């Protein structure tokens, strides 16, 4: 044991507005593995942290939603690249967080990386899948296209600290929304480490904001926040989900209710479309047109 080197612990921090602050409350809570071994002290976010995150997410929305879909795809793909390089770190963190074997944790991390690639490819295709020309009965050019709904609050799944988190976060930002995420309460460390990856992956500050703490404490203020446009209740239990859905009615947030999801399966488009609006633009046309042309 003489050559044993004392390791350097990491102080886990929140990720808000492209910065890594401690909780403004100065509080932390103990994070343990499933066998109750201490892993780290995570920030115990306050309602003020949640409000700050919403401000950051709103500020980032104009730029991110206005970026080209191609650009957003590049950025999401860059996240996969960065994760691939840090694969070993995440395998270890996921194994510790969820009490998985190395090989099982590796499968989870690989699936999460592949999920970023899957959504990276969706950014510039979803508009063609769910939008298009409407053949109205009149002289009009009429087009429906999807647009991001705005700031989305995300309660990350509790049982899948990394693959689950990525599965709910990536579709939100792929479509141009910005996100305020509450990491899994008992296993927040992979999420907080993901923030470091996002920060080095050209994801503009504020597009993703990650909080750790108690959903029962922070989520109600996000659900009631007048500047949040949607909420994904994936990580809420039945009772909390109902409470949050009621609070969300106050400004008619879009609500994605919790449901059983197999995060290892290839997702459909449900999580992409849940946070999209459809904008229909009409414009007058004359009677001229290629279809009516005589040659």
């Amino acid at each position: 044991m003489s050559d044993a080197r004392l390791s350097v612990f990491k102080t886990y921090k929140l990720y808000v507005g492209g910065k890594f602050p401690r909780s403004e409350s100065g509080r932390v809570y103990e994070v343990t593995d499933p066998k109750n071994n201490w892993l780290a002290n995570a920030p115990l976010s306050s309602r003020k942290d949640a409000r700050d995150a919403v401000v950051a997410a709103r500020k980032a929305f104009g730029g991110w939603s206005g970026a080209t879909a191609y650009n957003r795809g590049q950025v999401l793909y860059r996240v996969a690249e960065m994760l691939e390089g840090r694969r070993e770190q995440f395998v270890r963190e996921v194994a510790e967080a969820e009490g998985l074997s190395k090989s099982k944790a590796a499968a989870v991390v690989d699936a999460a990386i592949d999920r970023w690639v899957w959504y990276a490819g969706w950014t510039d295709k979803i508009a063609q899948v769910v939008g298009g020309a409407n053949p109205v009965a009149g002289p009009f050019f009429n087009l429906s296209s999807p647009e991001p709904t705005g700031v989305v609050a995300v309660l990350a799944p509790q049982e899948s600290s990394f693959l689950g988190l990525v599965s709910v976060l990536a579709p939100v930002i792929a479509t141009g929304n910005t996100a305020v995420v509450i990491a899994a309460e008992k296993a927040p460390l992979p999420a907080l480490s993901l923030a470091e990856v996002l920060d080095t992956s050209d994801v503009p500050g504020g597009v993703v904001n990650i909080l750790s703490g108690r959903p029962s404490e922070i989520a109600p203020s996000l659900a009631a926040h007048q500047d949040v446009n949607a909420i994904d209740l994936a990580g809420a239990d039945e009772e909390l989900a109902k409470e949050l859905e009621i609070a969300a009615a106050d400004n008619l947030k879009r609500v994605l209710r919790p449901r059983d999801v197999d995060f290892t399966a290839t997702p459909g488009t449900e999580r992409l479309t849940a946070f999209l609006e459809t904008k229909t633009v009409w414009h007058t046309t004359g009677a001229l047109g290629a279809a009516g042309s005589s040659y």
Partner: protein
Amino acid sequence: MASASAFEYAPAPESRSVVDLAPSYGLFIDGEFTDATGGKVFKTVSPSTEEVLSEVAEASEEDVDRAVKAARRAFEKWSALPGAERAKYLFRIARIIQERSRELAVLETLDNGKPIKETRDADLPLVAAHFFYYAGWADKLDHAGFGAEPRPLGVAGQVIPWNFPLLMLAWKIAPALATGNTVVLKPAETTPLSALFFADICRQAGLPKGVVNIVTGDGRTGAALVAHPDVNKVAFTGSTAVGKAIARTVAGTRKKLTLELGGKGANIVFDDAPIDQAVEGIVNGIFFNQGQVCCAGSRLIVQESIQDELLDALKRRLSTLRLGDPLDKNTDIGAINSAEQLARITALADAGEAEGAERWSPACELPDAGYWFAPTLFTNVTQAHTIAREEIFGPVLSVLSFRTPDEAVAKANNTQYGLSAGIWSEKGSRILAVASKLRAGVVWSNTFNKFDPTSPFGGYKESGFGREGGRHGLEAYLDV
């Protein structure tokens, strides 16, 4: 000002003899008309004369339960029917509506107070078109982009408003039936009749019993329907306040919800706009259906350099609008739907004046009986004014001005609503740039208030969620 024209119009009333009104109507449950348990009834009146048209049953919770049970029983067979067969029922309904459109147009004008010109030329053609459009989807759902074999949800509870009674019924019932759901629909308290006539169309079409059920009543009936535990899908069109209450009611359940709520649409006119066309569009945007339209262009946002010219033209045009008997084929502005709505419009317009905005109406004689409000225009309006923020749902236009496109966008988006917007400009790149920045579900460029069954319609923000019309409209009634 009406005397400015060289000739006075002679009255040209549409005959109401095509409508055979019964003195009373029951609820339509399981293919039969039935009295409400307890026998409660309420009266529906003609808003233009205050004449009592008929008595209608008031459905209790028990009646709602009966209707939901009937819909549940009918669901099994209806949803199992081949899509092509469901389609044929819907095509039949579309055709019968076309056949009976004159009767329905007159009926709708009587019960709602809107001009016959609009029921005849806008509402009824669109009602038939919606059934025709969604009929065609019924046997093509596997190809609609919602995965193979998308399933219906079950029993749909639908609550609709009084501004377009039959059109809103069509928007709700056509996609619900096409996708294999069965329906319990509650029409608005002040305009129940066309839905009850629709029940007769279902009978003529041979629609199986229980597939469509109509329960009449007030907000309590609607609340009972929305809260019923055996309803799988709730669709509502109406006020934002009620929409929020419904969202709270269905919280924590598995009921799928779509809401089509209020608006405070911005109609932006740039200095290069075709002024005469813009004036027609502005009039259409806020005075169509007496402004009782959720997507009405109730905020005119006009570039400062052309404000005076545009307002002069607009006032000239308003002075030619004819207000009066809705059954008169030359009437542009009909009656306000109810005394209650008239009181609300009056209070909000008075608030506009009290807060310092300048009020203008053309010289306009209002009939003695009925509920009437002259077309009204407010200038000197700021964004903080009540009339610039709250939905008035009446023929009241607020005028604001801007200097730069960015300012126009900022003002247009400065509302909790996000249903509609208009842009008037000859410059295509400007139209596209502004359209992409507006947070609204429908943007009309160089036109306004256009609808079509193939075209998705719905709101951003507090104007609700979900889309009606087009392929998008199917999603609300499918398990996807």
